[in-house]
């Protein structure tokens, strides 16, 4: 149990936000508890969005706080982090400088912030903590001059307000190392943008026309997500559209539904933190010697949703009865009262003319359908890879 600092409510360990008051919970969560989704009850955004930087491990991971690129280390340039002089220290030391005004970085360094090398921290999986940067990662943070949020050193833009950090710390135009990175791109035209648990945008993964491999081996934004396979998926961009294909990844690729979808037996869906498999309950078939399997009378179940709790392990199962069944946290026919990422009334499964359909009912976090093989996606589609949610920009 994690006790909320603000209201005192006891929350389950994997909750990131208090179910009572919505405040961010700061206790170290466990693997499996993190979904890169917004909380149904919105978080208190005043409470340091960077603190619970789920899904940003690639940027603010354990390897970062030290000295990105080596140039800003303790012996670097004119700024000595060990100096007792309260000089502005945009990086390389704890950002929580007492009394340091938000505009601090402006007065200080002549050097532009050193860009995070593309490979950044080693893709070290040992000691991996899925999706969560430990609190110590805040050490390398800069403070956004515009809104005061902590911003990881590798970010060119504030994740909270979009303020361009380059401008803040480097008022003079300075040639950027490694041409491509320095291009003044407001938002990449072809890209995937990480959506953080609090709904703000995180890092961006550039895409190019044609074939794009996605996975732990293919970019800083992915490499610390232990729920991503090294080669997880492929996104083929042709013309104005794209096809996303699951490359036999362990956890698959999920796409946020924008309209009703037909379900076939075996389809896997995700709502909140629930991974569910839809199955048809068919009429029993006679056995070779004519003996029927004894059992409880079927009151009219035509399908069921089974909670997947492991690779080969299933948990609770909920039969589907009547014309439709709703799913939710509180107001559905089938409820997940302890899953704070499921909306009160989230989705509906309907039986119509012998076919089964799934529809989202305006949930906060959406209903996700697993991609079987490949699937076309459009501009602004939301794709769930591993534990991270991305918006795909194709326009």
């Amino acid at each position, binding site marked *: 149990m994690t006790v909320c600092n603000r209201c005192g409510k006891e929350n389950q360990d*994997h909750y990131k936000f208090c179910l009572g008051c919505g405040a961010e919970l700061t206790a170290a969560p*466990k*693997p*499996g*508890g993190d979904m890169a989704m917004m909380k149904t009850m919105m978080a208190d955004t005043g409470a340091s969005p960077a603190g619970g930087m789920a899904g940003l491990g690639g940027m603010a991971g354990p390897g970062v706080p030290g000295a990105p690129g080596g140039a800003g280390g303790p012996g670097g340039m004119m700024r000595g982090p060990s100096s007792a002089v309260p000089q502005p220290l945009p990086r390389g030391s704890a950002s929580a400088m007492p009394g340091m005004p938000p505009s601090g970085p402006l007065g200080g360094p002549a050097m532009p912030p050193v860009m995070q090398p593309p490979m950044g921290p080693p893709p070290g*999986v040992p000691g*991996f903590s*899925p999706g969560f940067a430990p609190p110590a990662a805040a050490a390398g943070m800069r403070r956004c001059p515009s809104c005061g949020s902590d911003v990881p050193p590798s970010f060119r833009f504030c994740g909270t307000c979009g303020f361009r950090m380059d401008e803040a710390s480097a008022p003079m135009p300075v040639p950027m190392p490694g041409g491509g990175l320095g291009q003044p791109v407001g938002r990449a035209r072809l890209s995937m943008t990480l959506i953080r648990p609090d709904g703000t945008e995180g890092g961006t993964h550039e895409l190019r026309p044609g074939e794009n491999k996605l996975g*732990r081996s293919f970019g800083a934004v992915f490499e610390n997500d*232990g*729920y*991503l*396979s*090294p080669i997880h998926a492929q996104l083929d961009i042709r013309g104005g559209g794209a096809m996303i294909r699951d490359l036999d*990844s*362990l*956890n698959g690729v999920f796409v946020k539904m924008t309209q009703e979808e037909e379900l076939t037996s075996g389809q896997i869906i995700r709502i*909140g*933190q*629930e*991974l*569910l498999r839809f199955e048809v*309950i*068919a*009429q*029993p*078939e006679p*056995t070779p*010697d*004519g*003996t*029927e*399997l*004894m*059992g*409880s*009378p*079927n*009151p009219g*179940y035509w399908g*069921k949703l*089974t*909670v*997947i*709790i*492991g*690779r*080969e*392990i*299933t*948990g*609770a*199962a*909920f*039969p589907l009865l009547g014309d439709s069944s709703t799913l939710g946290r509180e107001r559905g026919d089938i409820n997940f009262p*302890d*899953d704070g990422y499921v909306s009160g009334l989230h989705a509906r499964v309907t039986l119509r003319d012998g076919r089964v359909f799934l529809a989202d009912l305006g949930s906060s976090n959406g209903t996700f359908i697993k991609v079987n093989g490949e699937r076309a996606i459009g501009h602004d589609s939301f794709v769930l890879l*591993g*534990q991270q949610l991305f918006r795909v920009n194709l326009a």
Partner: protein
Amino acid sequence: MVPVSFEVETRVGPRPSAVHAAVATQPHDTRTARDSRESKPGRSTLFFGGAMQAARAKLTLIRGDGDDGVSFTLAGQDHLAGRGDCPISFPDDPFLSPIHANFAYASHQLVVRDEGSLNGVYVRISTPTELVNGAMVLVGEQVLSVEHALQPADLPDAEGTYYSASMVRPAALEIRQNLRGGQIGWVHRMAGDIVTIGRENNDINFPDDPFISGRHAELKLAGGMLWVTDLGSRNGTFVRVHGERVLKHGDYVFLGQQLLRVEIV
């Protein structure tokens, strides 16, 4: 020593001849029942022994295919029961295998043995009974299976990727509803060590099952062992027999849809 009444003394069902025929189809049963009345001198020794055995136990049909109340004497050594050509035969019960069970004497005790049937043999419990992992329990019309040795969570795969499943919920027991025809209906995973089953106000409720009592049965996990206790239900709680089981006077046995009461003299 005129054992005439053992076969039909409690026969009040509408089709006595059917039972008669069922018993009579088996040679050694024919000998014990029929020949005794005709008192053939040459068979008297055989008959005498058979009658003595017959007096040891019988099965009375409590609920089944319209023969309610009839009795089956258990006069020999083995007494096969099933849908096929058995001395204890219920040809119209689709839930019985052709040869379903054997009521046999072993070490001066009557045992029921599952002959590899599809649906198994269930015996009503009278005291708290330990359940093996995956045991099947019959309450009312419900066929439930219970697991208490639940699988642990996954480890990451060979590439170091973690499996992304649903949120972790502690669970001690998993109870499944086995539907007629072999499909699984609902599955409940319960965190507590005690789970009550009944018609209403229990952990698991069956409001529409007319054969389940308000408070029917209780599952309890204690010291790594799982126990089932009947809470004084009207129709009883039955546990599927693994292999064979000794029967006592007054035990009830479910074979398919046939409920039999054991009477041992």
